[in-house]
């Protein structure tokens, strides 16, 4: 394990986040350190605070207390630098049929966000197509995003996340609409490949869909608290 400031991809110290106007924190006194290159599975019932935790890490929600570091950057001070290295797949992301964006455009946005002024080179467009192909979505590249099924939209968003070649990938129940075959392909091929490249994955899940996964750490949440952290001895091939 490497030493120094960047041993951890995510560090949370006594973090509590309140939604605006709420008296009760949605997550409370969270202390976590996630090693670089690990796959962390976050589980817990609905309302446990899993989504809130991810959005707090990304700085989309501002914690009332505590300190956060993502890939060595302080949140929220250096949040834009941190986000440039992250990719996020939000929970239940669906768009209506008339959306004026094609699947390929949606994936390309993942690169535009990082590039200067949002411009893409030919090489970038090739990356976009490769990412679509990886998830078997290349044949839908020119379809309007909203006219794809829920599972297909999720795959496009995953392609958008992957094309960014993130150092930290945050996935919020990414498999809710994805078929079993694709799910096991992602878990057994895509994830290990990312981990080998040094990417850290935070995967939120509330059910057994995670059974196939072999996480290096399991974080169990309940009522806004981290109830249990199980560190497992998983060997990731280097």
């Amino acid at each position, binding site marked *: 394990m490497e030493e120094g400031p960047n041993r951890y991809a995510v560090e949370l110290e006594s973090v509590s986040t309140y939604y605006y106007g709420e008296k009760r924190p949605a997550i409370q006194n969270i202390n976590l350190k996630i090693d670089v290159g690990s796959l962390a599975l976050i589980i817990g019932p609905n309302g446990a605070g899993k989504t809130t935790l991810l959005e707090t890490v990304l700085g*989309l929600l501002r914690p009332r207390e505590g300190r956060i570091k993502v890939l060595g950057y302080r949140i929220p001070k250096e949040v834009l630098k941190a986000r440039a290295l992250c990719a996020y797949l*939000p929970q239940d992301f669906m768009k209506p049929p008339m959306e*004026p964006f094609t699947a390929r455009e949606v994936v390309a946005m993942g690169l535009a*966000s990082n590039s200067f*002024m949002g411009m893409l080179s030919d090489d970038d467009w090739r990356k976009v197509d490769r990412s679509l192909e990886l998830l078997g979505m290349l044949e839908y590249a020119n379809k309007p995003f909203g006219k794809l099924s829920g599972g297909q939209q999720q795959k496009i968003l995953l392609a958008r996340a992957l094309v960014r070649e993130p150092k930290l990938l945050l996935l919020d129940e990414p498999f809710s609409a994805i078929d079993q075959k694709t799910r096991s392909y992602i878990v057994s091929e895509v994830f290990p490949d990312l981990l080998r490249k040094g990417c850290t994955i935070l995967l939120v899940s509330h059910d057994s869909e995670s059974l196939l996964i072999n996480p290096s750490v399991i974080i169990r949440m309940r009522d806004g608290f981290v109830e249990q952290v199980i560190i497992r001895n998983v060997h990731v091939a280097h």
Partner: protein
Amino acid sequence: MFMLLINSIISGILAGGLCGAVGAMCNRLRLTTIAFSIAHAALAGSALALTLGADMISLAILFALISATILGPLADQLRIPLDLVSMILFSMYNALTFIFILSAPGQVLMTESVGQLLWGSVLAIRPTYIAYLLLTFVIILAFLTLFWGKINSLLFDIKLAEAEGVNVRIYKYVILIIAGAAITLALRMTGGFLVFSLLYIPAAASLQLQANMKWIIAASWLLGSTSASMGLLMSFLYDLPAGSCITIAALIILAGASVYSRLRVSLAVEGRPR
């Protein structure tokens, strides 16, 4: 007279296009009511100019730009949607407009100036006005082309763009200020009540075309240009208020776009092999 006609057609093409493009973006961002606050800020500014005997364009632009600038931060501070902040400012500006007009010296209500303010007029078109339009045109076109990748991402989904490190707040504020400039300038021709026709009708017509976002903005730009220049021509020919003619032209174009889109769909269905 001929020069005025040429100038007003040029202004129509520029201002109509700007409003069309801005309208399509605001519609996508669900900011359709921002036009109300910005247009009526300009109206209040013009009314104040009447009272003080100052220059109408300058005060109108000043008021509108202040509004466009404070809208975003105000919504963030008050934690209410931009749409709602916009309607609050709209009410405030209307109140101010009436007070300014009624406290203006002399029989202002009867004058050409108030008519110009409310219904718009081609007489408002002067070389400096065209210069302002041209400048705004260049700025908006440059912003859209240079930053298109990020703007497209923002228009697709703000939260996702934010999560990926796009500075969405700055982009949103810039879009608001750009919208403010376009609306204020168009207002001189259409008047305070009918500037909305150029913001909403071309945007609605462009949605009929079922294209991607870039083409929707381009189409809205083109349709706005066409509506405004056609309307101004009509206003000249029949000596009718510019704003009303522009609105009617825009409505005709919307009807045309809707018929076209239906035809296209039914042709596509018939053309399919059975």
